[in-house]
């Protein structure tokens, strides 16, 4: 009770006009913080004593030196101003709690003798990196820009694609210790208000120490975090994020993380890439169908092989049967064990390739793929058809553009393999039914996940298996429940004039 009262008291505590008391208080609050700088000065304009306090590495020191210290100490101007400074953002504040928080975020605080308020000045200068091509989502024809770790810069990159005043931002602070700024971006006259409400409700009900990465936020606001399939899309590309906003979805930018969240999404959103819309429609459609085909191959091919070898060898044509029999004849293990050994080996190679630096990673990939595969067949441990099946499965899973979906596919494959080992084709079909059942019962932010397949929305099929020519896509997808549907008029108007 006492602790609570003093904590509340602390929240409401205000500064006093005495400068020395303020400085003493700051030094008491920030013990064991050698990067806190307290700089005493005299303001030339009014002759008052003042002190500026800031954290050494979080602030932009050039800004402090040129835009705060220099004008205060050297210039005398209009006496009606509070004080002279060149900094853009200045806010008077008298609560100690807020002053402390702002100091930790990288802002500077100016105390002036005899005044009851201190001033917060925006001098944030966090270490940052240059804008580069996103590693996980490279594109052939799109922009080579990816998000960086500063939230405001990411927002700027998205705003550049949509300089519309309807693009609204809502900012939330998430995390008691982390105080991470989470921004929700949407088009006010397009995005459905219910979706925004659901987003807001879910973000505001998060009570956590800190959010380090966007993935954690996704897990807190997802409908079914335990499911294998992802229900929220994460992307590192500003053009993808902007395109999703224009379709009627909402984007969440998390300060400190280079991925943004997009929701609500459907199952097909995980197979769309930004290159689909800048390439010609025929190749985009072909690649889209290839990706979906690869999805099925990656899940079902090992299971299909196991069930054909174990149960249903009568469907193999005679010539292939002899080859298969010969290669399987040397292998001492049952098909399931053979498959598991190869799949686990491949997963280990993949995981190892992620951690190693680029040149070694490539070598390991080649070594693992060719040498181990060859050696293992020659030793008679694995049949060569199994190596082909596993390699083909791995290539198919790499075709899927989204990392979360790729991970889900990798896991579902094992489930199907187990079912195929026990029940052959029937096991695979039951596995397929279970996956279908999962797809149709999942929701992404209260909107159906498996649309436009089921519930069947014919209009949305324009961007599902095929990518129809852009001049046919006049309305936003129905799956986003956008309240303003028309997104283009005739964009080949010149043709009609001919």
């Amino acid at each position, binding site marked *: 009770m006492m602790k609570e009262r003093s904590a509340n008291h602390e929240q409401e505590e205000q500064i006093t006009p005495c400068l020395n008391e303020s400085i003493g208080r700051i030094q008491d609050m920030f013990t064991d913080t050698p990067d806190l700088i307290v700089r005493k000065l005299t303001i030339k304009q009014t002759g008052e004593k003042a002190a500026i306090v800031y954290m050494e590495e979080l602030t932009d020191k050039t800004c402090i030196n040129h835009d705060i210290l220099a004008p205060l100490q050297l210039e005398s101007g209009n006496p009606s101003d509070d004080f002279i400074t060149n900094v853009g953002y200045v806010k008077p504040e008298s609560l100690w709690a807020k002053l402390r928080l702002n100091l930790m975020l990288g802002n500077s605080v100016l105390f002036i003798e005899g005044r009851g308020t201190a001033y917060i000045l925006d001098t944030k200068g966090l270490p940052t990196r240059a804008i580069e091509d996103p590693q996980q989502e490279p594109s052939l024809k799109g922009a080579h820009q990816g998000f960086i770790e500063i939230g405001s810069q990411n927002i700027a990159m998205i705003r550049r694609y949509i300089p519309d005043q309807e693009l609204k931002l809502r900012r939330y602070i998430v995390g008691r210790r982390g105080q991470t700024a989470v921004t929700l971006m949407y088009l006010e006259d397009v995005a459905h208000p219910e979706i925004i409400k659901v987003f807001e409700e879910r973000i505001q009900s998060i009570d956590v120490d800190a959010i380090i990465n966007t993935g954690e936020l996704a897990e807190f606001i997802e409908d079914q975090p335990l499911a294998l399939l992802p229900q929220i899309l994460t992307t590192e590309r500003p053009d993808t994020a902007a395109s999703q906003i224009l379709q009627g979805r909402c984007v969440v930018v998390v300060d400190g993380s280079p991925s943004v969240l997009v929701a609500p999404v459907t199952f097909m959103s995980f197979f769309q890439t930004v290159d689909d819309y800048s390439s010609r429609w025929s190749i985009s459609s072909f690649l889209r169908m290839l990706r979906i085909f690869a999805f099925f191959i990656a899940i079902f091919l090992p299971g299909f092989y196991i069930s054909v070898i174990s*149960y*249903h060898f*009568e*469907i*193999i*044509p*005679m010539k292939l049967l002899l080859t298969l029999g010969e290669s399987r004849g040397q292998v001492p293990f049952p098909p399931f064990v053979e498959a598991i050994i190869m799949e686990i080996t491949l997963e280990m190679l993949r995981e190892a390739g992620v951690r190693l630096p680029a040149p070694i990673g490539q070598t390991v990939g080649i070594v693992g793929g060719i040498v181990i595969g060859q050696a293992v067949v020659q030793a008679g441990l694995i049949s060569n058809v199994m190596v082909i099946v596993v390699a083909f499965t791995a290539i198919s899973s790499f075709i899927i553009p989204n990392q979360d979906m790729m991970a889900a596919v990798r896991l579902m494959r094992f489930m199907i393999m187990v079912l195929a080992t026990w*029940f*052959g*084709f*029937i*096991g*695979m*079909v*039951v596995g*397929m*039914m*279970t996956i*279908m*059942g*999962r797809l*149709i*019962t999942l929701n992404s932010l209260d909107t*159906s996940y*498996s649309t436009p*397949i*089921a*519930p*069947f929305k014919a209009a949305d099929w324009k961007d599902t298996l095929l990518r129809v020519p852009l001049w046919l896509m006049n309305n936003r997808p129905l799956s986003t429940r956008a309240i303003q549907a028309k997104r283009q008029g005739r964009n080949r108007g010149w043709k009609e004039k001919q």
Partner: protein
Amino acid sequence: MKTIRQVSTLQFTLMVSAFQISVAFLSLPRELARQAGTDGWIAIFFGWGMATLASAALVKVMKNSPDGSILDLIQRYMGVWPSKMAAFIFMAYYLLLAYDGFMIASLVIKLWLLPSTYIYVLVLLLLIPTFQIAQHGFQVIGRYSEIVALISIWIPFVYLTTLRHARWLYLLPVLKDGWLPVLSTVKIMFYPMLGIGLAFFIYPHLVKKEKALTAMVISNTLTCLVYLGITLVCYVYFSPDEIGKFNDPVISIMKSIELQFIERIEVPFIAFYLFVFSCIWIPSMHLVSMNSAWLLGKDKERGHLAVWCFAVAVSFFIYRPSFIDVARVNNFLNLAGFVMEFALPVCVLLYVAMTKKVRGGRRS
């Protein structure tokens, strides 16, 4: 009242159609041939006519209760105890339908694909997706039927390829024994048209209730087209003497299809056809759990579903059915289906009309 999840017209159509086609598809040509020889395909038209009339009566009945299922209707017009009795009867009826579906599916699997697996193990396996999907209600079942319809589009084309060996002469002369065999075959057409009874329970969930009758007519037509197609394909492939001798002419016909990269195409076909089979037992199990939940007055349909799934699995463990049992159950379901889905809507319609007249008469 909890929010009613919406079922679209397309989902309703496909749900009813898939329910009708799923088990009758395999045995229909054989049954029709046994009763009426090669003129059996004419009986399908009569079946369509009867189903349409029954659908009309059904939709008319349900118009009186737009927000509740048939049980709410009965409760409103006849009282609580008749509705509980009706719930019990529906529960038993759909349990029998689900049992029939599981039985046929697992026997066909045992015959063609996995002879050594115990039948209760197969049923237990099939119950896993059933439990997962049926617990969520008609919206999800509707979506499932949509997907199944989408992935089954290729099946008619496969059957059309068997027409290479067709002998159209088998069909002639039409009506060689007169109309009597055809008319007496019509009585076995009730079982293949079972599924219109789903409207008793789906009607409150429909978005566009005014299109319910159109949807049902379309689904009956779709079902009968499929039946007609498969019956004619079987009749022109098998000779009139041998068609009554095959248990599953629909599967046996696949032996004529030869592809270069796969032999014995009926094996993956049956595995794939499991999707269509599932369209009878998933809605049935859902309705069983819904009716038993209504009986006990609680809302925990999921718990009821778990209990019923377990009960079905145990029943297959205790008693192993054979194809003779299938024939017996089908015959019984023919009669029971006639009562429940053809006669019942008409009776309830008459009762409701009379009650309204009496009540209206009293008021005026």
